[in-house]
């Protein structure tokens, strides 16, 4: 089965799904609401309160990528469901029995994750661009904010690959969501604070992914955070490859 056929197969599974269309519409709406919440952003500082134009060019690229990163948990849950429903309905077993090699099954799912990352990026870029055009241009707190248009898809893909791996191991939706959210929001932050040194902690998966699009709002308060892009980029690229390989390995060993 050629690569194009693999994409056609995954499209045949997903594109007629009303659930997918509704989920993406809700996701786009939530991203829009998250961006709208930045319209009247104000910070209380010791010297008084300041109002910032968080939706103005060029900062809107960074700000939108950051807030969308939180809304993305909806996307990750949907991705987990896409993986675990194949186990629940035993459709992955039927795919394998019908002649789809296990490795190609996982490659198809990786393509789906890449597709989700691209769709998410298109939605965020379109909404951020629209908000920027609407608001105008202001002084930049982050001179290279446009680079987050490129970093955001990589961050999203990395989390989606983690979701693919977790869904493949957990097999059940509830357990997969618990593991994914528990690891990224609870377990890893605790490991970073309590177990690992700062040097090692920033190489953990979620830390590396998050560092690609760091919190932009410190800059508005005049705080400068030492920030290197090289290490998170390399770490994330390695994790994406490792998670893909690990998912293939696990799926090839599983009884379906």
């Amino acid at each position, binding site marked *: 089965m050629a690569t194009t056929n693999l994409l056609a197969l995954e499209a045949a599974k997903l594109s007629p799904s009303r659930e997918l269309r509704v989920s993406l519409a809700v996701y786009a709406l939530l991203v829009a609401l998250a961006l709208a919440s930045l319209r009247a952003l104000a910070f209380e500082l010791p010297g008084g309160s300041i109002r910032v134009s968080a939706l103005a060019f060029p900062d809107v690229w960074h700000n939108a990528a950051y807030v969308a990163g939180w809304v993305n948990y909806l996307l990750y849950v949907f991705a987990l469901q896409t993986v675990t429903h194949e186990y629940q309905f035993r459709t992955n077993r039927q*795919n*394998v*029995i*019908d002649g*789809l090699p296990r490795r190609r099954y996982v490659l198809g799912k990786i393509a789906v994750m890449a597709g989700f990352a691209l769709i998410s990026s298109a939605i965020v870029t379109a909404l951020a661009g629209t908000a920027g055009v609407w608001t105008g241009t202001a002084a930049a707190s982050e001179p290279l904010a446009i680079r987050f248009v490129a970093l955001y898809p990589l961050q999203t893909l990395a989390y989606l690959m983690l979701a693919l791996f977790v869904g493949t191991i957990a097999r059940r939706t509830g357990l997969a969501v618990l593991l994914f959210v528990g690891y990224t929001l609870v377990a890893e932050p605790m490991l970073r604070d309590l177990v690992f040194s700062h040097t090692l902690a920033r190489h953990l998966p979620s830390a590396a992914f998050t560092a690609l699009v760091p919190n932009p709002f410190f800059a508005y308060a005049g705080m400068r955070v030492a920030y290197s892009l090289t290490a998170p980029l390399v770490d994330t690229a390695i994790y994406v490859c490792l998670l893909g390989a690990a998912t293939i390995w696990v799926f090839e060993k599983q009884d379906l």
Partner: protein
Amino acid sequence: MNVLETAGLSKRYGRVQALRSLDLAVPQGSVFGILGPNGSGKTTALGIVLGAIHPDAGRYAWSAGAPGAAHPRIGSLLEVPAFYPALSGTENLVVVARIRGCGVEGIDEALAQAGLFERRHSPVATYSLGMRQRLAIAAARLGAPDVVVLDEPGNGLDPEGIADVRGAIRRLATGRVTVILASHVLDEVQKLCTHVAVLKHGRLLAAGDIDAVVAGAARLEDAYMALTHGHDEPPRA
């Protein structure tokens, strides 16, 4: 010429030995019944030869029969119908056709034969169990397979549906398609199968031409009871 041969296939789930050193040979063009009570290892054996389950030991080999063909085209229904519930019957068969590399032209005809043409655009989630079972059998037959594997195909079907399935199996058999049929319904196996294997607690008790297995008994049921008598203790690892 055998289309499938297994040697020493074994599988254990925890402390339960689901399959114990299974040796089978399925002749090409036969209707091969795998008979046994629930938990006898029928589905595990079929899951292994279909590539869904990894055996702990042993090996199996499919033979296409046709010169130059490495592997036969196999259609199957294993245990329960497995479909994407949000997709329609047609859309699910498109998924099957894409994986098998066969055209989608035969889908409408397959749905009509299964009596599902009127509901072809309805989501499978709205189908009854019997309708799903018929859709699964239609999927198994899609793309003119060389071998059709059916695991308890009568499950969930009304008497008319069961009769339809039996008719379909007979038509497949006359078309030189090898049919492997797992069932615990003795009457069904006796009416349809040319060859039979009897399993209990993962152990092969008898296998061969159905007349040879029935031997002097009046019915397959009598032969089955005689074979399985004294094998009530499940083998432990």
